[in-house]
């Protein structure tokens, strides 16, 4: 029997202290979570005191509390944004009806699938990032990695809470299974492809947090519109944390670019070999990493035509990004959307029913948002007087899912044949040589205020602390 005081140990606004059933369910799950954390969580970090941001309530004063904590003792809380008893469903066939506080029987299977899929991505990224702590380019970066890890852990809790609270025995089994699958495991892998890819080095980590956690932002935003009120409120709160992950990616790549540009200017060269010899990452390699992570991430949105997407929308389970701010009828019957396909070796646009194209709609929103951020990266180069610009590859480049899967296509969107693809592939996607080179730069730097030679220091520290603050105390 556990003697944990749950309302203190697990900050929550779901009245956990008084919900015996839920408490018992979590009492069963929590030790397994800790075991999972010990087994596949951040490598070698057990004794570190990390300067973490912990949420203890959802109001502005409570959700960003900073202090040194051991990650294993992090208070993974359960938070739902404040609800509105009169909230109405604002899209799909149930539009205008009262939002659901419980799972309607007919949508049970679909809702569970959505929650499990979202939940599965959270521990997966912790697993993917497991070894990165051993090669952190600075103490500041190490702290950010750990912050992301604990928040992914909290997001897992958020989904597990929904499963336990609303899905009975099935829910408990699914919650167990979330701790049993493992990223990249041959027998029992994570559900989505990108979450079984390796995150071998910090450049990959920054690209992952920039692109793949942004996928998280869009998926969570779509779920935050859900007719199932507890899901909407949970994901709304998760979004505020997801922001930090995207920040780590966006500023991480910016700092790599800034360091590369400085080396290029110092040596007055664009020669990749010379830049690498000076210990910085050449822009070609950065572009190839970008191409890879972008294309893998846009696959996460699913097939461009999907009847599931239509069902999820019409039944009110999952809305569009910023559904409430859109001016259409929010039912979308009889409307169309343009998707891409290849006809006679040519890319063409084709009109399909909007409801079936909702994955594509969300993907396009994501694309717009990530392209804007790549524009901000280019400003770094522009300011340093470097003429090269990073570009986002064509939407059809290197796709494995949907109508564009397997089509050989240049990053600029020209269909190519096998021979051309084979000849050019190494210019477009990271090569074993690229990985080996980036890996060779990954040495651990953890003295306060010191940074590895391939990355510039950040513009400012965490929570207005100085950059050389002791973000991690190694005990």
């Amino acid at each position: 029997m556990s003697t944990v005081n749950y309302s203190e140990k697990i900050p929550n606004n779901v009245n956990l202290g008084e919900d015996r059933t839920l408490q018992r369910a979590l009492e069963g799950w929590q030790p397994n979570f800790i075991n999972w954390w010990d087994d596949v969580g951040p490598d070698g970090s057990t004794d570190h005191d990390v300067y973490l941001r912990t949420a203890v309530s959802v109001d502005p004063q409570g959700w960003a509390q900073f202090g040194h904590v051991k990650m294993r003792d992090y208070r993974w809380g359960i938070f739902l944004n404040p609800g509105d008893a009169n909230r109405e469903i604002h899209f799909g066939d149930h539009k205008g009806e009262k939002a659901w506080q419980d799972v309607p029987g007919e949508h049970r299977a679909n809702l569970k699938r959505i929650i499990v899929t979202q939940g599965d991505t959270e521990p997966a990224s912790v697993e993917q990032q497991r070894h990165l702590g051993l090669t952190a380019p600075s103490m500041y970066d190490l702290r950010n990695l750990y912050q992301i890890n604990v928040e992914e852990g909290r997001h897992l809790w958020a989904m597990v809470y929904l499963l336990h609270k609303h899905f009975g025995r099935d829910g408990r089994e699914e919650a167990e299974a979330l701790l049993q699958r493992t990223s990249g495991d041959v027998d029992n892998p994570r559900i989505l492809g990108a979450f079984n890819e390796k995150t071998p080095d910090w450049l990959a980590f920054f690209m992952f947090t920039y692109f793949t956690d942004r996928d998280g932002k869009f998926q969570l935003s779509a779920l935050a519109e859900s007719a199932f009120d507890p899901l909407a409120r949970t994901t709304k709160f998760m979004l505020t944390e997801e922001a930090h992950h995207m920040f780590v990616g966006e500023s991480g790549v910016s700092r790599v670019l800034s360091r590369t540009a400085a080396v290029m200017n110092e040596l007055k060269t664009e020669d990749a070999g010379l830049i690498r010899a000076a210990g910085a990452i050449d822009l070609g390699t950065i572009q190839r990493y970008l191409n890879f992570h972008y294309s893998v991430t846009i696959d996460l949105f699913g097939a461009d035509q999907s009847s599931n997407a239509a069902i999820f929308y019409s039944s009110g389970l999952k809305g569009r990004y910023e559904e409430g701010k859109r001016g259409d009828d929010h039912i979308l019957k009889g409307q169309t959307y343009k998707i891409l396909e290849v006809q006679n070796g040519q890319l063409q646009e084709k009109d399909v029913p909007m409801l079936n194209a909702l994955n594509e709609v969300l993907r396009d929103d994501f694309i717009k948002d990530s392209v804007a951020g790549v524009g901000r990266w280019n400003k770094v180069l522009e300011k340093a007087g470097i003429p090269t610009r990073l570009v986002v590859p064509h939407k059809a480049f290197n796709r494995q899912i949907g109508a564009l899967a397997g089509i050989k296509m240049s990053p600029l969107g020209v269909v190519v044949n096998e021979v051309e693809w084979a000849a050019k592939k190494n210019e477009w996607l990271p090569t074993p040589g690229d990985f080996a080179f980036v890996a060779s730069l990954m040495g651990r730097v953890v003295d306060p205020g010191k940074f590895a030679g391939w990355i510039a220091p950040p513009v400012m520290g965490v929570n207005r602390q100085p950059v050389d603050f002791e973000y991690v105390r190694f005990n």
Partner: protein
Amino acid sequence: MNMVVEAGVIKQHLIDPEICIRCNTCEATCPIGAITHDDNNYVVRADVCNGCMACISPCPTGSIDNWRTVPMARAYSIEEQLTWEELPAELTTEQLAGEGVSPSAAEAVEAPATAATQSAATAEPGTVPFNSSAFGATMPPWSAAHAYTNLFSPKKATSATVVGNFNCTEAGFDSQTHHVVLDFGTMPFPVLEGQSIGIVPPGTDAMGRAHQPRQYSVASARNGERPGYNNLSLTVKRVTEDHVGNAVQGIASNYVCDLKVGDKVTVVGPFGSTFLMPNHPRSHIVMICTGTGSAPMRAMTEWRRRLRKSGKFEGGKLLLFFGARTQQELPYFGPLQSLPKDFIDINFAFSRTPNQPKRYVQDLMRERAADLVALLKDEQSHFFVCGLKSMEEGVVLALRDVAQEAGLDWETVGAGLKREGRLHLETY
């Protein structure tokens, strides 16, 4: 509103577009909807942001914590900010002077964020510009009751019914100020003395967007304007000229002053978790206010009066310094006069009484130095300052001088007041 210090200068809250990742956290956090965005940038509305700092720590990048001293009339507009690729440089002293802003005025506008982190104890008088906000507490008094905050946001506002509205200044004078009573029916809207609420004016602004809420301090005691009822009162001054004296029609204040009994009002809040009264029986309260800054003072006084009437409260001095241009413009002049002298010690300062020298609250405070020194030495004393931003510096300076002339070390006294939640500044 945004950190106004002296007529015409503000410390404008801006977001650094070079660091901001457009994550929407700040917009989701801001309790009064001061932040907005387009596809390009996230920006702060200068006329809405009240510097509450709720958005600062949740921002993952730190880009939100930027402040620029600008003449009020030249505050960067939303439209301008939306096009930015980087933050504009700070205006130089010469540029500010060109806009009619004196260097001392510019220096006095300290961003609250820096003020909070700056160690007050290390600032030596005379060598560093005096920064009054550095002494304002960020903690409530130890015996304050727990305040509920942010129960209703602009996206999820509630409504109240007007059950009373009358001019509480003398009719026919400038600075017309209304006493407005709002009833919440059965909707929970718990407030404490010292908190404020937000009123959302109906209609849209020039850009076609819903108006932002304006904040008003609660002027009634915790158990209602009418004891036992779910209602509260506000003290709202019609804004008919802006901070630099140009004629304008304030959107919310005129709307509120013109409300009729029975009208419904959209309300957000409550706000504020530090400007709260001490509740222990030996606590002294020194209240220093001008104009509508009297609202929270009225609330605290009324709660103490009710406690005293019920026989539940002993001791604890109440000392009030109240400034207005003329007696006729002073809200609640009549009712204040009728409070027993042994209950509250009232001092009025009028700055525009014909044929009389101008007197400000800080002049009165200096005259009452002996009493203030005794209170400064007493750990049971709590100081509350509320009114237009321009009064703040003078009042805190007066406190400092009073302390120093009595041989007290102000840095120690001031730091103690701040640390223990005993000096509270709420100016707008």
